[in-house]
């Protein structure tokens, strides 16, 4: 703990904090009133049924059989394909469900079980997980952001760094609300762990805790691998800092590294303990986690491969193995420079941009990508929001928009529009707070938005004006595509026209953002973070 809270400086703006948080929770519940994915759609239903089925399996079968195909556990029907922590979470919820409503988790008999009370129960499980992990993490990060700001009184206070504003804005991000509460998933858990890990890195600077929490996140959803590289390189680089002059360099490095390694391995062992009875269990688990045979992408994803697929039918030309190798190579090439930059020109401020870049690289180029995976890139962007509101807001809009085909399938059009409008209007109010004389549409003006960050800057830059123009065009395009998807019937020989258009449109945006954030990261200078031991010696 390097930074002790200074009692005199520790002021947190909390005037609108409570109403803001409650309001964002209210929005969540409003979305939750809508149907989930696969609502009344036998035989396979959707993600809701998958979660329920996992509860059923985990409650009624022994641990070692969870990932194996047995008579009781038909892996073809929503087999468990997330790491053990998800399974434990399901077990916990399943036990509660078993107590409250045994029919909902009865083995075999409960397939496709749907009732209002059970729906309410499942929504509550998401809500509680959300409150305990995601909301608290967001709150802590935002409080810390303002606290750090309070220590430097020279800097003018930016509205977006006020705790109440930034927390509410973060929590109102529509993407995760729609996926978790509408579509039904538990992204809030893995992302909550991830946010806690980030919090420990950027605020508390406790590397061990950060690794432990990141391992938790990783063990909840393997998709958290998107974020693994920045964590790895940042923590590795930190092991080199604070080396004593002369002798003992190696022992210092080993000591630092050991601490992290022990944390990682111990956490893994504890979590995987039931499966360590034999290698076949571990291999089966890993095989379930990384299913190579499921193809390069599902449905329409706004990544590069899906775009390429329009012109070259990748699935027919190359085998899955070949494709996987190509993907790995290209992803490494795309993510490599960002990681290298973080490693060699380390700066604590680079950590979040690096997270954005790497996760975007994974999203754009890696194998087996879901449209929901964009959340993994969107949450770091939301973290970065106070630094660069204009671009981040744009990104978050596009990221929500890119999930539109999925949301339409679930019948979530109205919540999509409503939450997006709420988010946009709240953002525009935030801008109005810092510049009371600006209009409600100043969100389209990058110059104005940037004035919040740098109030002393007088001149307007042409680049920003150009960006604002593109932003307006982009928003108009999104609105038109939404209207088109809903009202225009695609020609019969192109049934997937609009989903494809949407993903192509978003993909172009993501590529653009990819380059932009790369530029952002590289333009930050190098600055060594201070290490706790150094200060202790003083």
């Amino acid at each position, binding site marked *: 703990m390097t930074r002790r809270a200074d009692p005199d400086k520790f002021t947190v703006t909390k*005037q*609108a904090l*409570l*109403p*803001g948080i*409650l*309001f964002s*929770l*209210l*929005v969540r*519940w*409003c*979305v*939750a*009133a*809508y*149907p989930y994915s696969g609502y009344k759609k036998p035989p396979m239903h959707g993600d809701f049924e998958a979660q329920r089925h996992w509860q059923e399996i985990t409650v009624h079968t022994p641990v070692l059989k969870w990932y194996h195909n047995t008579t009781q556990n038909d892996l073809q029907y929503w087999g468990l394909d997330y790491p053990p922590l998800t399974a434990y979470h399901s077990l916990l919820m399943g036990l509660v469900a078993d107590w409250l409503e045994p029919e909902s988790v009865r083995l075999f008999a409960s397939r496709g079980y749907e009732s*209002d*009370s059970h*729906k*309410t129960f499942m*929504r*509550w499980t998401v*809500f509680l997980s959300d409150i305990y992990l995601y909301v608290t993490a967001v709150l802590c990060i935002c409080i810390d952001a303002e606290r750090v700001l309070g220590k430097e009184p020279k800097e003018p206070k930016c509205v977006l760094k006020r705790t109440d*504003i930034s927390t*509410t804005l973060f929590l109102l991000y529509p993407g995760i609300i729609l996926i978790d509460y509408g579509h039904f998933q538990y992204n809030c858990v893995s992302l909550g762990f991830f946010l806690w890990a980030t919090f420990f890195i950027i605020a508390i600077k406790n590397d061990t805790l950060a690794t432990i929490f990141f391992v938790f996140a990783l063990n909840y959803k393997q998709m958290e691998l998107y974020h693994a590289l920045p964590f790895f390189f940042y923590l590795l680089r930190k092991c080199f800092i604070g080396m004593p002059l002369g002798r003992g360099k190696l022992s210092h490095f080993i000591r630092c590294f050991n601490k992290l390694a022990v944390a990682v391995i111990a956490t893994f062992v504890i979590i995987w303990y039931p499966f360590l009875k034999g290698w076949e269990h571990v291999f089966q688990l890993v095989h379930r986690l990384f299913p190579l045979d499921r193809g390069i992408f599902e449905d329409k994803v706004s990544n590069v491969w899906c775009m390429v697929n329009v012109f070259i039918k990748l699935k027919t030309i190359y085998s899955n193995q070949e494709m996987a190798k190509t993907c790995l190579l290209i992803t490494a090439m795309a993510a490599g420079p960002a990681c290298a930059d973080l490693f060699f020109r380390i700066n604590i401020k680079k950590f979040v941009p690096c997270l954005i870049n790497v996760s975007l690289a994974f999203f754009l180029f890696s194998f087996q990508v879901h449209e929901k995976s964009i959340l993994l890139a969107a949450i770091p962007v939301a973290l970065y929001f106070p630094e660069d509101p204009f671009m981040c807001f744009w990104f978050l809009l596009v990221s929500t928009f890119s999930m539109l085909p999925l949301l339409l399938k679930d019948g979530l059009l*109205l*919540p999509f*529009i*409503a*939450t997006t*409008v*709420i988010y946009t*209007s*709240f953002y*525009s*109010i*935030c801008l*109005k*707070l810092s510049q*009371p004389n600006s209009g409600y549409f100043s969100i389209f003006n990058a110059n104005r938005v940037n004035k919040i960050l740098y109030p002393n800057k007088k001149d307007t830059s042409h680049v920003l004006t150009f960006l604002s123009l593109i932003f307006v065009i982009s928003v108009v395009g999104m609105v038109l595509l939404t209207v088109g998807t809903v009202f225009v019937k695609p020609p019969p020989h192109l049934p997937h026209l609009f989903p494809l258009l949407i993903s192509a449109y978003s993909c172009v945006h993501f590529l653009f953002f990819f380059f932009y954030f790369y530029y952002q990261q590289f333009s930050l200078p190098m600055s060594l973070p201070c290490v706790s031991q150094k200060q202790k010696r003083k």
Partner: protein
Amino acid sequence: MPSEKEWGCATCKNMFIRVDRDRRYASTSEQNFRFKLLEPKAEPDVHSTDFEVHRNWLAITHNLTLDKWYYDNTSEWTLDYPPFFAWLEFVMSFVAKYFDPQMLYLTNLNYKSDMTILFQRLSVIVLDFVYIYSVKRLSGFIGDGKLLVFILLMSCPGLLMIDHIHFQYNGFLFGILLYSISHIIENNCLIAAFWFAVLLNLKHIFLYVAPVYIVYLFRAYCFTISSVDGVHTPWYSFSLANLFKLAFTVIFVFGLSFGPFIHHIPQILSRLFPFKRGLCHAYWAPNFWAIYNFVDKVLQNIGTKLGLLRIPKAEASMTGGLVQQYDHAVLPSITPTMTIVLTVVTMIPALIKLWHLCADRRYRVLSFVYGGLCGMFLFVWLARSRESYTHDIGTVDFPLSAGRRGRQTVLNTNNSRELLTVPLLYPKNLFSIKFFILLTHVALAFVNIRTLYEPAKVKGGRRIRVLRLPMLRQIESLYLYGLIVLCVYDNAIHGLWGLDKTLPFLPLMLTSVYCSIGVIYVWLCYYYYFLTFNVSQVPTLCTVNLAEKYKKTS
């Protein structure tokens, strides 16, 4: 109004605080504005009987000729609102045609297509703009914290729940009421009277407020001279011309409304005032009769246990769900005339006070609002839970115009009124939404209203009071905690103990009795405050803008 202390030290710091506060309000205001508009959209699958009621009215007004509107009884939900509302439905039915023409078939009972729902929800949202406009207008009169008032009125949870979840057009109606009040504040009595008459012809439930209007308009408009001492009535200044103008306005509106139905007025009246319905609605309104019934019920049970009474079983079904006549077992039964007499008796002191108060020009506005609040909800025949909102609106409206002294009661009412309606609104699967609407609103109120009244705290200078909510007395805080306990009991414990099979209506009964205690307490506080209300006790009555305005005029 902020206290004088806050004004007294008009330092730069203070200015900064104010600016900062305004900004904060700006944020939340807009937020709630959106939330008001968009919340119903996120509300897909719940609609009550009122939904079918309004659909049926659309069909009636669209298909039948004028003279049959009030006779049709294809559906059990016959048209029982005054004519202007029927006209409104008539106009809306032409828009509805483009959404789904099938909803306009008379015999198409309980028709619920997606487009119908969408249309109905949208109609509420669109008509709500009237409310937004009025609130904006009204909050403009308040000097400090105008945004706070705006937010609080916009986010009024009762209205949100009833209009957008339960489905009614209260927002629109209250919008007209507030518009009328805003004209009273501006001293445009004729316009105010006009709009109030229109409102009465939209929904006759607003007759509750009518006595206040009558007394106020008569005293403030028909007497041209306002006395200074407030007690003496200058009878010589009675202006017949003004009375005539007033009467003409009101009669004109009523003529416009009832004129086309001139031959059917008895039928309309019998529809508007169905005295055959019982004293208590199935969802008990938290009014005096809830307690009365409860006491009766308890006495009855005790009586039968002790063998003092013999009661046929058929009678003991008051809470059975239907709106019916019911005879009390022990206590004397209540007839409509008795309720009316009681209502009038309780009103009279307030009205007399109002008569004297509104003599003084500066205090007219305030007294009007107060008067409106000392309403007649408590004793009214067939009061439903929703009607309590007649007062709720006013409540939020004036904490800021009131002096410091009134603030405790004000806030208490504000919160308890809102808290108490939650349990009364079913179904259960929407519990969480309602809960968070309410929490958001209460958090806004508790956090922000206080800052208006209390000067900035000195660090560590204040004693920490255990378990006491801000700005409330001990007993009031306790009451609110009790409400939470009750809420938990209703929603969880009652079911867990398995009592929901044997005593299905117990939670409802308990909540309404508990809430009615709260309402009566608050009502008594108000009444007391209003009756002892003295010009000299409240230093800053007028809001800033109004004060300036009166300076100019006088």
